[in-house]
């Protein structure tokens, strides 16, 4: 067999070994993740918790702060996405109502703008 064929086979075997090591033997570890990477149903349940608390305290700023764990997306977007997922998954009607209430509040919510003299 020609030497370049052997080298090609060895190269392919090396690639296979490398991928097997990286995916199976020593893959990237799932640790210290952020809420932004959570699966949709977990995110939705978190937003539902925020909605339940909001229904009790009616504090849109606190609710927005709680939703901020998902990153820089606007709270209205986060709550809207949760509402859609809740519909897809088949949440109970009273929970959907809570999510709607939160979604409406987040759409109306305007974060406080720092005053001119405030520190950054």
């Amino acid at each position, binding site marked *: 067999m020609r030497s370049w064929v052997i080298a090609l086979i060895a190269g392919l075997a090396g690639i296979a070994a490398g991928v097997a*090591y*990286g995916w199976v033997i020593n893959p*990237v570890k799932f640790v210290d*993740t952020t*809420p932004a990477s*959570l699966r949709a149903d977990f995110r939705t349940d978190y937003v539902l918790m925020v909605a339940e608390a909001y229904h009790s*305290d009616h504090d849109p700023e606190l609710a927005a702060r709680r939703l901020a764990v998902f990153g820089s997306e606007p709270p209205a977007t986060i709550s809207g996405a949760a509402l859609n997922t809740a519909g897809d998954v088949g949440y*109970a009607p009273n929970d959907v109502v809570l999510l709607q209430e939160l979604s409406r509040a987040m759409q109306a919510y305007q974060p406080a703008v720092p005053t001119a003299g405030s520190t950054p």
Partner: protein
Amino acid sequence: MRRLPWQVLVALLAGMGIGLAYAWVIAPVRYVDTSPNTLRSDFKDSFRTVIAASYAATHNLDRARARLSLLGDADPVQALTAQAQRMLAAGDSFQVIQNVARLASDLQAGESAGVPASPHPPSSTSSPIPTVSTTAAPSFTPASTPTETATDTEPPPTAVPIVTATARPSATPIPTAAAPFELVSREEICNSNLTSGLMQVSVLDRHRHQMPGIKIDISWAGGEETFFTGYKPEIAAGYADYVMQPGVLYAVRVAGAGSPITDLTAPACPDTGGESYMGGLKLVFQQP
């Protein structure tokens, strides 16, 4: 024996390098669709805080318990208690700490403080709480059995939400820390095995559940101090203690509300040799 051609060795190593680069850099194990048990510890704290806030609003202990289980804590009560202590040390809002402590207390007691005497019938359904297990499930399909997923390698975790019919009791006001506590028991303790002058305080809610994270103010002529319940969960979640000095009269107030209990002092206890030693006090406070 024939020697391996050097070209083959180089090709093998280069191939392995390309394979690792592909597996670790170009297309690593997908870092999406994770479950809460993989969250960083500070995000887990945020989750517990929101679970506690939700519980304070709904009083649905089953749902709170299911949600806490997603975080994968070996002992959720201990995790909540420890978090309440961290929040106390960080100077977080008392109401937020109180919610966390309340949930820990109710979980320990195994029942919801808000369940009794609901004037409205509970709804018959509630939404699915996603759960986590170590087996793979192929899709995101509603199911009524606990067959959910999350793995830390490929394939990425997928799960099926469980449909549970958990009653949602109506909102019954939770007793807050602002409600005055009453001294329901005061006992002199003569036990030479205990620290001399030990004042043991237990704080209970109206259902006699231990209450961690409750502030206790103690004052005497010329000074005052503050301490909290919950720092010795191995004794009880609502337990705290303080070492009294001989001959000093103390006044104790719980949660900054109500009238202080005054004229508290370490008793003199007789020992077997006819001498005396400084005993302790055991005080139990409860919300009416």
